């Protein structure tokens, strides 16, 4: 029977080509949606690598050019004043804030290998306050002061990507092409610090050390508040900052609120795309349903004939669903030939083979279900006629 169905589809290739094209396009849309949904779901499941509860960031925004000596003193005064607030448990410096797309990147070539990473700076003990996990080595500490090297911490992704199955502690990742470049010695490996939030890709990430006693131009102050801190903290700190350095602008925001904002910024476009894609799929489903209805109606004589020759109502229904499943698979195969080029050619870095196959499987299940639902009712109608009615249908 399968070969018979294939023969029927092949001989009706002209009338089937439109449905096949429609199914191929729908499959590509469903695949794109699956890739986005599965990728973001997978990313969301990966731990951030730090805690955002009770964390606040005070961002200082100077309105004039920075004066190294004078402004560093003001910064120290600000740090001291904030630290004295009763709600404040800990205070640290962090160059690029969490849940924002502020980024610094570096690229160096070491032993012929190009190493590309994101970088950030924080002070001693910041990692512990943020709740980060150390995999190897140690955090920054006083032993790193007044040394002839700059200590750095790298994340596990950095190790896995550039030095798999190798101990990196003590490695120098300074750019060898820059003369007299200060050694950048890896002193520790931490699990993760996903600065850009839950929906961001895992990237190689490096921390350099800053000193809270000599903050330089570190304009981001991270504050950990005690649990159940008073709501008045924000306003009170803002008044203190304005009184200490009225020439600057300030923003104070909790990491949690920044996280919420970033999630919204990621999910809103996704939701809009999903709605548009859903409409498209509904249109395709309606089109498919209409085409199938017309297709079944135009074949009423054939259905009556098959019933007269010995086909049961069930076998007719199976035939209609079977034909549709084969047509769907042909459409999917055409779409597959197009889509498989993406991971092969590396068009999208994020679309690796594992994500490709999972999304392909999810899209296939969806399309077969959709085709099955669209074919079920016209198939049912076709079997409702008695053979003599179907043979005399006009």
């Amino acid at each position, binding site marked *: *029977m399968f*070969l*018979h169905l294939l*023969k*029927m589809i092949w*001989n*009706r290739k002209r009338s089937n080509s439109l449905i096949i094209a429609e199914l191929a396009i729908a499959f590509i849309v469903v695949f794109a949606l699956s890739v986005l949904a599965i990728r973001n779901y997978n990313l969301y499941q990966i731990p951030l690598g730090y805690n955002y509860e009770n964390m606040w960031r005070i961002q200082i925004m100077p309105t004039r050019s920075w004066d190294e000596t004078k402004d560093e003193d003001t910064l120290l005064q600000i740090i001291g004043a904030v630290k004295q607030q009763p709600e404040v448990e800990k205070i640290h410096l962090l160059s690029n804030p969490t849940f924002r797309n502020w980024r610094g990147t570096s690229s160096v070539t070491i032993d012929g290998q190009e190493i590309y990473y994101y970088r950030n700076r924080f002070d001693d003990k910041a990692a512990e306050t943020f709740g980060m996990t150390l995999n190897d080595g140690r955090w920054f500490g006083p032993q790193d002061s007044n040394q002839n090297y700059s200590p750095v911490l790298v994340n596990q992704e950095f190790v896995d990507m550039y030095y798999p199955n190798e101990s990196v502690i003590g490695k120098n990742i300074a750019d060898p092409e820059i003369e007299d470049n200060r050694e950048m010695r890896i002193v520790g490996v931490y699990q993760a610090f996903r600065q850009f939030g839950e929906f961001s890709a895992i990237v190689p990430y490096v921390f350099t050390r800053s000193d809270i006693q000599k903050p330089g131009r570190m304009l981001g102050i991270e504050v950990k508040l005690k649990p159940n801190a008073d709501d008045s903290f924000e306003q009170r700190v803002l008044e203190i900052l304005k009184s200490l350095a009225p020439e600057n602008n300030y923003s104070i925001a909790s990491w949690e609120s920044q996280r919420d904002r970033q999630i919204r910024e990621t999910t809103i476009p996704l939701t809009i795309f999903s709605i548009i894609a859903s409409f498209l799929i509904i249109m395709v489903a309606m089109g498919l349903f209409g085409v199938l209805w017309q297709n079944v109606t135009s074949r009423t*004589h*054939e259905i*009556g*004939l*098959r*019933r*007269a*020759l*010995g*086909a*049961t*109502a*069930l*076998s007719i229904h199976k035939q209609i669903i079977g034909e549709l499943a084969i047509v769907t698979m042909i459409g999917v195969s055409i779409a597959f030939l197009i889509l498989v080029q993406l991971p092969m050619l590396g068009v999208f870095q994020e679309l690796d083979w594992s994500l490709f196959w999972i999304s392909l499987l999810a899209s296939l299940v969806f399309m077969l279900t959709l085709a099955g639902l669209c074919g079920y009712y016209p198939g049912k109608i076709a079997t409702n006629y*008695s*053979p*003599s009615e179907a*043979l005399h249908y006009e």
Partner: protein
Amino acid sequence: MLKLNNISKSFQTDRIETIALSNINLHIEKGEFVSVMGPSGCGKSTLLNIMGLLDQPSEGNVAVDDKAIESYQDKHITGLRNEKIGFIFQSFHLIHDLRVIDNVELPLLYRNISAKERKALAAAALEKVGLKARTHHYPTQLSGGQQQRVAIARAIVGKPEILLADEPTGNLDSHMGDEIMKLLESLHQEEQATIVMVTHDEEMAKRTGRTIRVFDGQLVH
């Protein structure tokens, strides 16, 4: 072989009930060639549909090989149709997207027969109707007479016990009609096929062994 006992058939529409057949009693013996005649709308085709189990009577029952069909369950009925009855229709009812040989093997698709055996049986049936050379043609590439021969090959491919032909020459000119009639006659004489044929043509009816006349849904003796 085929018995119709007190068969009545009526069609109900919104307002009126049309009686197509009334109290028909009929017995078709094995090896008979019977023609059914009557004016248009008298119930000939309805009678043939009921004999072929394509339609259910409103009253009475049909017995095949002395076994009355009581339940008319789909699986049971389709099995009987597939194995015991071959149909020939006025408008041929060939599937135009399938080649001649694929059309002929259609009834065998619903039996547990291998593809190879199906092909062999279909080829043999086509040879019997003189269309071996047209095996791989499509129906639209054939004349009306040839199309009806394909339909006859399809009707006989499963070696049914009875052939039911609903005006098999109705869509053909007299020459082609005569060819088809000769083919039915040879099937009857050489293979002892049991044939019931609905026709309008008195000359065709005369060539059969028995003629049943239907008028206003009743048999006329």
